[in-house]
């Protein structure tokens, strides 16, 4: 595409993170700002914008998922059965 695309990120309120909002096509940063202000701020819906040329964005989308990595995630741990056994041994197994 001959015309540069600027991705627009907007912050809705103080304390919120910037979120991707859309894009504008503009020849330079001044036009991108003027037009993004209009498209993403004319109704007071944003307190801040980031404008980033699409080319400056590095896309990261693939992850290796070959081995069992559950040891380092919450879903790799199921402690119910062992906890029950430990409580019974200690005599503290109550109802439920």
């Amino acid at each position, binding site marked *: 595409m001959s015309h540069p695309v600027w991705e627009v990120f907007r912050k809705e309120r103080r304390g919120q993170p910037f979120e991707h909002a859309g894009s*504008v096509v*503009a020849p330079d940063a*001044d*036009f991108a700002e*003027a*037009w993004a*202000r*209009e*498209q993403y701020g*004319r109704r007071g819906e944003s307190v801040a914008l980031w404008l980033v040329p699409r080319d400056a964005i590095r896309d990261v989308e693939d992850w290796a998922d070959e081995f069992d990595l559950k040891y380092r995630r919450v879903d790799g741990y199921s402690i119910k059965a062992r906890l029950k056994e430990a409580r019974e041994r200690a005599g503290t197994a109550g109802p439920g």
Partner: protein
Amino acid sequence: MNEQALLGLADDELVLGWRDSEWTGIAPMLEEDVAFSSIAQNEIGHARAVYELVAGPEGDADALAFDRKPEEYRCAPLVELHLLDWARTIARRWLYETADEIRITALKDDSDTAVAGLAAKIDREEAYHRMHAEMWHERLGGEPRFRAAVEELWPYALGVLPGELRGELMSRVGLAEVDAIERGTHTEELEPLWQEMTMVRRSAPAGAQW
């Protein structure tokens, strides 16, 4: 600032806002359509605020805006011109914003605190208009038709300001003094504009609600 001068400011903003909104749907790019629309809304908003000030708490801003005869309006001829080509439209925007900044800056020091306060609010909103006009001025500055438009509209631009503020305008725009097209007379464009602007309002008796 006296009432006549305030009406001049309000009428300038009303009529220019009307002209700027003529670009709705037909601006060179959609983004500019949206930007121009914001500028037009701001201008109408400024006009409304000044009319409200002049009309006072018991008065009717809409009546001031719409119910006078064309010859009673105090707008400068510059804003009346029908300029539906982009070079001349942007030239007018740039010249008007430059002149208006000078006028508003002076108004911020007005002895009437209500006027000074309103001028400060207008000034803050117009910062975006100036940014927009400057951006286009930089982009089109080299285009022959833009430069020709600035020269053509220059006498009208001078007429926006009272004599004592014109020196400042000349130095900012970088053009020498010429005979100004003065405020106080109207172009033949105002009458058809007024007819269209008021046709719905005039179709019902005065005081009808809309």
